[in-house]
């Protein structure tokens, strides 16, 4: 794996430092630390309720953290507004698909371009050359992204009318429209059959190369995770119980105990 070695020498992109999150008395995350290098596909696994999505929500500004810090490209992003975190280069998809169902496929992706464009009320009213050019760029970029995730020809469909698998792909295209340096995917292949899962795995690898992405992946599908991830962290009851290459994590007794129970 020559590529992986080259990437490993590159800079750390995302640092999660001792992050804790309490909901009332419940501790959903407990001193979780991760560091993700640029270009990695970093898997986040763990039983249901382990705190994976909570961690995503802390990273993307949806939740404030109770303690600790999150840095993206050496800039603190924790406790910032979601749109500020997006501006810094962090995009995500959702465990339960959350598209703008009543907007077209194209419009969904165009919303993703919002942060990378600026036309306001004035531009809309004056309709000057700059605004028109920007609108054209947004549209072309959105169409290009749709083609990259395999949604060519669906641009004018209502997002809510797409099949489940295509909706997942649309969420990815919408996230890519924000020009992220890191893309966080929350169970992107849940509910798909094995061949669809394989396609999605290939899509992730392809997108990483083309957009020079770093990918954070929450996933239960062990086979997919083992195939595409360079590194894994395992969460259980809000604590990181293991971290390393898929091969190392797979053999870690703590992980086996967490997944199979018991393990005294």
């Amino acid at each position, binding site marked *: 794996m020559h590529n992986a070695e080259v990437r490993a020498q590159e800079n750390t992109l995302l640092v999660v430092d001792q992050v804790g999150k309490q909901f009332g008395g419940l501790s959903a995350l407990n001193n979780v630390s991760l560091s993700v290098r640029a270009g990695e596909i970093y898997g986040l696994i763990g039983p249901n309720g382990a705190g994976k999505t909570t961690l995503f929500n802390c990273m*993307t*500004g*949806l939740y404030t953290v109770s303690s600790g810090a999150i840095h993206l490209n050496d800039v603190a992003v924790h406790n910032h*507004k*979601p*749109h500020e975190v*997006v*501006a810094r280069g962090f*995009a*995500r998809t*959702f465990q339960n698909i*959350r598209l*703008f*169902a*009543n*907007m077209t496929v194209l*419009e969904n992706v*165009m*919303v*993703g*371009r*919002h*942060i*990378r*464009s600026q*036309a*306001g*009320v004035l*531009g*809309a*009213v004056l309709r000057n050359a700059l605004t028109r050019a*920007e*609108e054209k760029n*947004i549209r072309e970029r959105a169409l290009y992204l749709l083609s990259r995730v395999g949604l060519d020809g669906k641009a004018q469909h209502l997002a809510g009318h797409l099949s489940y698998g295509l909706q997942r792909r649309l969420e990815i295209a*919408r*996230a890519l*429209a*924000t020009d992220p340096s890191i893309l966080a995917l929350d169970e992107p292949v849940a509910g798909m059959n094995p061949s669809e899962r394989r396609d999605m795995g290939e899509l992730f690898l392809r997108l990483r190369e083309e957009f020079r992405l770093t990918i954070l992946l929450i996933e239960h599908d062990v086979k997919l995770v083992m195939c595409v991830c360079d590194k894994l962290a395992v969460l259980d009851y809000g604590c990181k119980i293991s971290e390393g290459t898929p091969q190392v994590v797979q053999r870690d007794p703590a992980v086996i105990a967490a997944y199979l129970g018991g393990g005294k």
Partner: protein
Amino acid sequence: MDIFTQQIINGLVLGSIYALVALGYTMVYGILELINFAHGEVTMMGAMVALAVMGAILGVAPNMPGILVVVSGALLAIPACMLLGFAIERVAYRPLRHAPRLAPLITAIGVSIILQNVAMLVWGRQYIPFPEILPKSTFTVFGAHITGLQIFIIVLSALVMSGLWWLVQRTRLGRAMRACAQSREVASLMGVNVNKVISLTFVIGSALAAIAGLMVSAYYGLAHYYMGFMLGLKAFSAAVLGGIGNIAGAMLGGLLLGVIEALGAGYIGDITGGFLGSHYQDVFAFFVLIAVLVFRPSGLLGERVATRA
């Protein structure tokens, strides 16, 4: 003179004013699920500010062309209302964004009363006449009389509404508004500054309200501090009639309510054999509203989730 055509035209004029105000209610509701009861008072403020400006201009230059005076009034009233709408959201609603839904509703009623009282203190309790400076020309269409002002109101409303429709459907800001209407949380995670979109929604709605306020005072020839209440109530009803949260619904609901009201005023005497006079037109309009809602609780175009903005 053909009474039916006449009432339809009168109704369309009134209806396009209702529609402009209804849009402000429906846009805010679409994004925040908040009924901004202060919106009627923003309309009133638009009329009052415009009349004050026009009065001041006429005091200095009594021979200025009437249309120029009215345009100057509008050019000051519109930004004033935009600022007012922005301030109302910022001060009264944003701090309550995560409060239970009744809290901002009560606040809205509070803001509405405050604005009425401010207007009363500044301009007094009396009716303020709209200066007679607009040219009076009347045309006859299909046996009905239509004034230049009426034509102007209908045309301007149509222009403003098509502009708004285009803004919402075809521009970056409009997309962001529609995205926020579907999910503020997801929109923010896709990089939309939700607070900014909400502010702009209030500002745009208030600009429409200012235009409507000026229109209504020109149409009835007067303005007063309490005019926002009934106008707001009618416009809100129009928004509900069309399906609240739905922009096309607000336009349709406004026009329809105007026409129903005008027809009611024209025919209620005949229908009831003279028992009820034309001053019962409001009763007639609200009766129709209730009847529609019984059969279509979500309004004419409302599916609540469809094309909300």
